[in-house]
């Protein structure tokens, strides 16, 4: 005759216990990520103004966006251009800063904090400050350029300049984050490799080109993927500083989704735009993954 354990924990299958520990995260992910994403995907096939019931329209929203919507293509182009301007500059400056703050110098911790400060500042607060800096008539940037007989430039209201101006601000805001990631990467490279290279007579530049840069490749890959995701979804600075203008020159896909959903009450089209954006980011990430894997092999 077997005796049943009275301890409820003993009655549990041992393999189920780990799942209990991760249950809160699973529930959170299912209810706050997967279900909303699924509903959003369904909504992208409907006409839905959020005030009345959705109406099934099949792929009409996707067809409308991809065929005869100039604003969608302009937004896609702006988004790609914005990412291409922000990412390389961000990588170059953050790597340079990481190398600088990786030196064993007095007061380096202070500079690490200073470079990281913009990251923890609200994007709206930062945008307000940069709007002052960029002000055409009384802005700091035009005042400084004026000392050298340059300008004034209409940084945010000239369609040829506005996107670049936003990109400069975004680089300034984001370098601190990538600097910290590069710094971790740099500190993970064993010192003896550099010592061996020095004994072999490699110059500092050669050491950077042949050792540091290749060994930081996984970090750079991570930064590129995360940077692409982040810049493709840019919204806050555009909402605060340019509202997509002038002449739609700063309307990105993220801002277009907001306009469609909350200005025009077209949640179906907004969802379709969001899924196209997802597709673009997904395809770019896969392509990058394949490229980096091939390089590493």
């Amino acid at each position, binding site marked *: 005759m077997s005796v049943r354990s009275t301890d409820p924990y003993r009655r549990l299958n041992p393999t189920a216990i780990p799942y209990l520990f991760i249950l809160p995260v699973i529930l959170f992910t299912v209810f706050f990520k997967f279900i909303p994403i699924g509903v959003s995907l369904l909504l992208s096939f409907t006409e839905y103004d959020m005030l009345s019931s959705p109406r099934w329209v099949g792929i009409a929203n996707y067809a409308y966006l991809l065929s005869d919507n100039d604003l969608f293509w302009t937004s896609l182009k702006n988004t790609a251009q914005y990412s291409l301007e922000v990412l390389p500059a961000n990588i170059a400056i953050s790597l340079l800063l990481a190398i600088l703050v990786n030196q064993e110098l007095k007061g380096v911790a202070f500079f690490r904090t200073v470079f990281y400060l913009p990251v923890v500042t609200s994007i709206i607060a930062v945008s307000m400050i940069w709007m002052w800096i960029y002000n055409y008539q009384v802005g700091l940037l035009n005042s400084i350029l004026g000392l050298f007989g340059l300008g004034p430039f209409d940084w945010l209201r000239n369609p040829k300049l506005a996107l670049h101006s936003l990109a400069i601000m975004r680089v300034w805001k984001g370098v601190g984050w990538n600097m910290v990631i590069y710094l971790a990467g740099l500190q993970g490279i064993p010192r003896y490799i550099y010592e061996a290279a020095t004994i072999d007579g490699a110059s500092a530049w050669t050491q950077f080109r042949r050792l540091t840069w290749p060994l930081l490749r996984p970090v750079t890959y991570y930064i590129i993927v995360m940077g692409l995701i982040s810049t493709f979804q840019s919204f806050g600075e555009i909402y605060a500083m340019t509202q997509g*203008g002038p002449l739609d020159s700063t309307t990105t896909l993220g801002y277009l989704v907001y306009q469609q959903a909350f200005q025009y009450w077209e949640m179906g089209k907004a969802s379709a735009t969001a899924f196209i954006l997802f597709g673009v980011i997904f395809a770019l990430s896969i392509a990058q993954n394949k490229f980096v894997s091939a390089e590493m092999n």
Partner: protein
Amino acid sequence: MLRARTICCTLVLLLVLTIPAFAETTVRIWFADTAEPVMRVVRESIVPEFEKANPDIKLKVEFIPWGELSPKLLTAFAGGVAPDVFMHGQAATAGFAAASQIEPLDDYIAQWSAANDFGPTLNSGEYMGKKYLVPLYGSANLLIYRTDFYEEAGLDPKLPPTNWEELASAGQKLAIKKGDRLVREGIDLASSGTNAQQTWTTFLWQNGGSLFSDDYAKAAFNDAKGVETLEFYTGLMDGNIADHQQAEAVGSLPPLAAGTVAMQFAGTEILGNFKTYAPDKYPFVKVGVPLEQQEKAAWYSFAGLFLSRQSTNKDAAWKAIEHLTCKASLEQIIQAVGGLPPRVSMQNASFIQEDGNLVMFLKGMEAARFNPNIPQWTKVRDILARHIERAAFGVSTPEEALSEAAAEVNRIL
């Protein structure tokens, strides 16, 4: 026995204590303004007065910035958690009414003794013959100018422009250029966004044009009058009178206060800005008259309170609307906002009559024109604004811009 008696007493006590909580009705209100003076009068004066007079009703007021109002309302309605009462501009009426999300107020208004005092402003939120809005305050888009700049340019500050030719001529004299750059615009004009639509539409009405056909089935702004209006409007932005972009505020200072423009079209809010941030400049600010080309016209709009159809406390919510729009409450709100009173009897209030600029805004109401109440209005407004901007930047000719805008508008009407 003693234990049972103690439990029984505790339960009775709990029941007695929770009775008031069950008897109390809570009315949720979304107030679309986050300016400190407005929040203060609502929180510290208007709400306590109401709750004192109506102990069975509790008001829960949330202050929402204007820019976030539509997204928040949409998500609240979609989620079934809309406030009982919410504030919005009159242009929102048709969209919410067509979607059956707001309650017609005609039955309440019919029994309301104060209704007559609102006069025609009570029609500002009318859609398909039903009234949905009780106005709180109004604003407009009138010419505002600096008298010190007028004198400096040899113009008589008592004689502001009355038509387009006088406007262009004054703008020319008031503008100051340094090289190719305007350091002071003669007149500041909006070329993008809602401001561009409102200002250009005012010019269109002054030229005898209209936005739509009489039955609202077709765009009418692309006719000869519309093209002539846009030609004049964009012609002012030639770099000698005005830039092709609206002047930027300098921190909290409106461009007129900062001295970077001499004249601009603005609403009553700018007067409040001057009084708060540039009180020394306020004596040099004057409000002009509505311009007249073919007709005298000026854009006006009212913001007010709507009753949500989702509300389960409609009668209590209406009581709250009555209180928020009574004369005593309106006086406090309007003084804090710097808006126009919707009630006729308030037009002679001392705080209005003592300010010549507010009086000019009230006088201008004789020529008041409002944006149409149609469900597609926000889309139409943005289409128009986008094409006005294209014309202002020279990407399209005025004729092309209006033809393209009309084609887009006709597709959605």
